[in-house]
């Protein structure tokens, strides 16, 4: 029996159908940063598409997770409640929530495991254990936590702690949409934009701000597996299907190699592919008590890390 699963996010059904699901075990259906994103499966108006998406995944033997808005106001909670009431016949495996109020609402109205997302600010095992009483089963910890803190939390809870394996770091959510307000674009043309200040870059996706660099834990998967982590997450939000397909295959092969006892499991071709996809470089600084943008490891040369503070081996 496999001792790991790989999960990702898609915003809409078009992207879902472009995924190669061989390397993916579960998909979060919807964008939690903005309900208005075109075709967003987290939007109650798109429930027919959501049903189709869930059925599509279940037919292929994969897990389907519902998604709620990360920062819901009262009016959004009302929509969430109506959304839940229309979920009959949808056989989802979990419901992602980033907000305590949404967690409470979902717990009170639906019998479904809750996955607590990145914006919920989970920093300690006591918070994990408290929220497990609200039917929360899977936790995405705050990415600021160091590796030893993550391992400590895992050792002090029975809940599932997901590993943020790869992708843009979610750094914040704003009230206003940067793309609509600063760039004067309509929702139908929603895309992402790279903000630049000298050597520093951020990726803005409207209401969400992500890192421009890809968080990358390829060198540390062994540590996570041997400490009992089972869920490995690749952030697919605002990335194309090629990105998700390539990275999920790499991480699946890496995890398989580790399970098969391969000591130097990282292949040069994987590093090349990661560098091709991670246009602005890779990062994992938080794991080592450094600023998030930094990278600590052996596989990526300094020029590929894209900062003058990256380490070279």
């Amino acid at each position, binding site marked *: 029996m496999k001792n790991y699963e790989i999960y990702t996010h898609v915003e809409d059904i078009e992207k879902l159908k472009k995924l190669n699901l061989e390397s993916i075990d579960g998909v979060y259906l919807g964008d939690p940063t903005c309900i208005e994103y075109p075709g967003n499966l987290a939007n109650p108006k798109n429930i027919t598409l959501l049903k189709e998406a869930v059925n599509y995944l279940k037919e292929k033997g994969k897990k389907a997770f519902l998604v709620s808005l990360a920062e819901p106001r009262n009016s959004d909670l009302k929509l969430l409640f109506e959304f839940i009431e229309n979920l009959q016949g949808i056989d989802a495996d979990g419901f992602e929530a980033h907000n305590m109020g949404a967690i*409470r609402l979902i717990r009170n109205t639906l019998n479904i495991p809750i996955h607590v997302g990145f914006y919920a600010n989970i920093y300690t095992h006591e918070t994990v254990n408290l929220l497990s009483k609200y039917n929360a089963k899977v936790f995405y910890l705050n990415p600021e936590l160091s590796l030893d803190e993550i391992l400590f939390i895992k050792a002090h809870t029975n809940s599932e702690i997901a590993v943020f394996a790869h992708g843009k770091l979610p750094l914040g959510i704003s009230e206003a949409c940067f793309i609509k307000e600063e760039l004067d674009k309509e929702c139908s043309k929603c895309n992402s934009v790279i903000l630049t200040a000298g050597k520093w870059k951020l990726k803005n996706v409207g209401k969400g701000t992500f890192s421009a660099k890809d968080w990358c834990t390829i060198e540390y998967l062994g540590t996570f597996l041997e400490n009992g982590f089972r869920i490995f997450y690749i952030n697919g939000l605002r990335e194309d299907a090629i990105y998700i397909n390539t990275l999920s295959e790499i991480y699946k092969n890496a995890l398989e190699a580790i399970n098969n006892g391969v000591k130097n499991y990282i292949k040069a071709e994987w590093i090349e592919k990661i560098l091709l996809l991670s246009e602005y470089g890779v990062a994992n600084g938080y794991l080592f008590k450094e600023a998030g943008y930094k990278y600590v490891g052996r596989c990526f040369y300094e020029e590929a890390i894209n900062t003058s503070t990256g380490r070279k081996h």
Partner: protein
Amino acid sequence: MKDLKDLELIAPVSCINDVLVLSDSKATAFYAGLYGWSRASRHNELDGDELKEAIEIAKERSKRFYISFNLIPGPLELNQAKKVLENMFLFKPDAFIVTDIGIIKFIRENGFEVHASLGCTSINKEDVRFLMEIGAKRVVLSPHLDMENIKDIAKEINPANLEVMIWGTRCKMSIMGICRISSYFDLEEKPIGTRYSVWEGSPKRSGICFKSCAQFELDPYTCSELYSPKELFKIGIRYFKMGGRGMKPQYLKNLIEGMYEELRDLYSCRRY
């Protein structure tokens, strides 16, 4: 303040002198951060001895006093956080202002009143209900709510459980409490006071945001009157928090007096 007896104007204090100056103002409560454990800058916090003295002065002047313990401890320092809190319990503050939900529960279990901090990012009525369920008596609403949202919450939640920051900072880049932009660019682990690790650069873990987003020319902050006290008063809100830690107490006193006068005119004429 017999004509506005339910009103609480809560002022920040950063040293004993602030307490002494503001004791003569219309502020009815003070809050101060415990050194190393609050969202204030380190030089705006009070150590244990200072807090003890500040609480005693406040009690003598019939003012309430809240200790801010609203940074999030790391998982490895939870036991230390609880030991520090147990020392604070001896000072008998009127309440603690807290962000971490495990700490909210711990303080409540020890019989003290808890106010859920701004850092809890309470933006809807279910957030408030959740925090009250785990032990908060009062919830400070997020400054990112507009008046309509606050009215909506106050319709369904007893306003006696709600507090609003009426003067302070609102960040445009990210909703307060969930931003990691600063720590993404700059993060430094340091021991501070009784704290094992303060992570400067992470607002939730150290209170210190380096405002890295400003380099992107995004005009990230506003600092001003966030809400009209009159409008809040009309919908039943009675607990008003002032930001401005580190501001000279005389300026803060003037702000408080001005707001009190506004509210007194409203109350005495029954214009709501």
